[in-house]
């Protein structure tokens, strides 16, 4: 122990002074890069999210003024009692029609973005997305099974069958992929990716097989197609609350992993040299990321692009440190998907576009713009 270098704090005040000046110089040096301090930035993003949610609730076949929405929502908390000078159907629309959808969209966006950050950080690959290691095909197979089964709900009407089977399918698939990729107590990242790709292919084949063989395909195909292209279609609060719990817990866990994810950037051996149990953390990241993805998929179907692009965008704007990147991505993803869902509902109203289509159509140009205008060369 005696050989360890003590921090030179005591004896040398001039040195600290020097360090302090260097520190301020440093701050000035980077002044241009990061204008807003982190807490302020997160606060700003939260405000934007709130505004976007109100906007999303307000738009629709029957527009409701934002002031009314605010009052209805505040009344709902039980703490406020504003006089009801609005139509009672407005209240019904807000609480039973629009809020479930908007909140789901925000949750799904947050979950997918955070899962994207987790997988990109763990796999050290900016091309990774939450669906990479089997979640999407597992969920799709689960949904396909749900569509061809002759009953719609499980456990009475409490939980619709499709989200449940999609969730289970996603989780089982990811664990299966992880188990396959595990060789001699280790899970090499490349093996994990390859196993994911192979299992994806197999499950897609199974899904096609099931749909081809089932007799009432014509009947359900359109519904399944809609589900696969992604679209938030929930009308009941109970699944949303369950999913929200899973997603919030997942995000909290992710935030606790931010230091670990930073260290993973150095590669597995580098992370091990910094004192991390790499294999344990890898499993934890896979579990948390998949839980988030599966929970999101269960209520929204397969919405692409959010999980890939939002982490990138935030990384380009805020830098790669996960302590800031994770919460910012969660908020950014929520904002993005709420907006996308809003657009999907109003663009060709009264018809509704699949959100997946919009996320790609809106997200891709936005992302390309960021990519081209980034001062930091995005090299890999």
């Amino acid at each position, binding site marked *: 122990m005696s*050989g360890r270098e003590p*921090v030179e704090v005591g004896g040398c005040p001039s040195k600290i002074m020097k360090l302090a000046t260097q*520190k301020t110089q*440093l701050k000035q040096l980077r002044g241009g890069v990061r204008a807003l301090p982190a807490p302020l930035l997160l606060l700003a993003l939260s405000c934007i999210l709130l505004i976007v949610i109100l906007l999303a609730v307000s738009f629709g076949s029957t527009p409701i003024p934002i002031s009314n929405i605010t009052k209805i929502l505040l009344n709902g908390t039980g703490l406020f009692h504003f006089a009801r000078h609005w139509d009672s159907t407005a209240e019904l629309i807000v609480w039973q029609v629009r809020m479930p959808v908007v909140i789901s969209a925000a949750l799904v966006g947050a979950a997918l973005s955070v899962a994207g950050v987790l997988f990109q950080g763990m796999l050290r690959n900016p091309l990774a997305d939450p669906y990479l290691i089997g979640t999407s095909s597992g969920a799709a197979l689960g949904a396909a099974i749900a569509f061809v089964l002759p009953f719609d709900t499980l456990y009475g009407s409490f939980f619709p069958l499709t989200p449940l089977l999609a969730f289970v399918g996603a989780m089982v698939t990811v664990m299966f992929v992880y188990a396959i990729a595990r060789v001699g107590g280790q899970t090499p990242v490349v093996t994990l990716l390859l196993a994911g790709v192979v299992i994806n292919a197999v499950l897609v084949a199974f899904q096609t097989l099931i749909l081809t063989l089932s007799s009432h395909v014509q009947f359900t195909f359109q519904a399944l197609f809609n589900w696969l292209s992604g679209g938030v279609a929930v009308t009941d609060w109970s699944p949303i609350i369950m999913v929200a719990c899973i997603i919030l817990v997942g995000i909290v866990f992710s935030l606790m992993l931010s230091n670990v994810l930073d260290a993973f950037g150095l590669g597995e051996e580098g992370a*091990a040299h910094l*004192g991390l149990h790499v294999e344990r953390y890898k499993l934890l990241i896979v579990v948390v990321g998949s839980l988030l993805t599966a929970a999101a998929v269960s209520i929204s179907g397969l919405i692409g692009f959010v999980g890939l692009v939002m982490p990138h965008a935030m990384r380009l704007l805020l830098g*790669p440190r996960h302590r800031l990147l994770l919460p910012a991505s969660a908020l950014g993803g929520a904002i993005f998907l709420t907006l996308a869902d809003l657009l999907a509902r109003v663009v060709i109203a009264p018809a509704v576009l699949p959100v997946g289509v919009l996320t790609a159509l809106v997200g891709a140009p936005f992302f390309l713009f960021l990519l081209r205008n980034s001062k930091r060369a995005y090299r890999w």
Partner: protein
Amino acid sequence: MVDEGKNVGVQFIAPKTSPEILLEMKGVTFGYEREPILYGVHVQVRKGEMVGLLGPNGSGKTTLLRLVSGVLHPQQGKVVLEGRDLQDWGRRSIAQRVAVVPQALHMPFAFTVEQMVSLGRTPYINLLGSRNRLDAIIVEDAMHAAGITPLAGRIFNELSGGERQLVMVAMALAQQPALLLLDEPTAHLDIKYQIEILELVQRLNRQRGMTVIAAMHDLNLAARYFPRLLLFQRGIVADAGPVEVLEPHLLKRVYGIDVQVGILRGAEHLSVLPPGSGLETDEREQEVQPQALVMAGGGSGELLMRALADAHIPFIAGPLNIGDSDYALALRLASAVIAEQPYAPISPATLEQLRKSLAKVSLLILCPMPIGPGNLALLQEALSAAHHEIKVLLLAAPDPSGRVNEQFNADTSYTNDELLQQTGIAKRDYTNGEGLRLVRDLLQTGAVVVGSVTEAVEAAKRSAILASSNP
């Protein structure tokens, strides 16, 4: 058996006040996928030492570093850090004591230099905790020490290779390690940064008392900066200062190339130069015409090989298993070594090599090594060599006190049974009498039992004179 340090003939000169041992490897053996890479590595590193690891590519330098950093676990033996088995330390505790600077690092995300260096604090912060004021000071200090403070706000990926290496060293410094491991820190760097990195490491070693172990591929830089060098060839072949380790003969055995070692005019350190031209090499090859072949193993050939080398009698040693203590010594002393895979029986290919080598020599000396099914073939080869007019000497087994039997007198005539007794074959024969039978056959063909190493060397000298007078 003789301890490893003594075996290789050179010892590390301990500093006057010998500080406590920081790191110790005890009989560490390791291999990937059934192919062993390190055998029986014994080494001690004291606090404040600066050790360079040398050896050709694939000789196990990096593997040794990974064993010390705890990323790999030895298959046999153990690594002891600060008096405690590395496997009993937690990962975090190791990271607070041992920092590693990798050969090259690919960082997929745009971390700034300061962010990279502060990653070095990871072993000290908990899951939720953020870095506090102390962490910030340590990070600043690490950057200052490495001279990269002006780069703090730059993106790591956009730096040059040398600058990146400095950042990696600063990151390791932020771990406040007692032991700094560097894996070929100067690989792929231009000369300016090679010197800058090593000067930095030397400064850390001298000013902060940081213990350093670095794998080095550049022998000249190693000679210049490292007071202690470990030469690897799947195990430690030499462990000493540059003067003893950077010895042309030894380097030729290990690296397989002729080199010249000397002090260039005006320089303070040894320099290793590649051969001037092919012609020169050929002449040198012819110069060392081996005269004897020594079969040994398990330390039985140590005294003889030293004596032969002292008498300037060139000899071939082998076949020896890589990792055998006689093998490490033979690499230093013999003009050629016939090597066999570790712990493996003598293979047909090796036997073929042995026959070719036997054709070059006029004398075969058998040391009193244990005979088992794996090396029984050596005795058979010796027997057939004896039939082909090669003089065979059987070195008598030392008596239990460890000395060569001195009562034995070559002038007295003994019966074959008495001679057999002298060779001690009965005690070291693990082949159900097959070895005994072969030694008896050897004696009948006129093999001579020599009681001491001196006698064996005298016989070798005589046979050398005979060979030169009767070509």
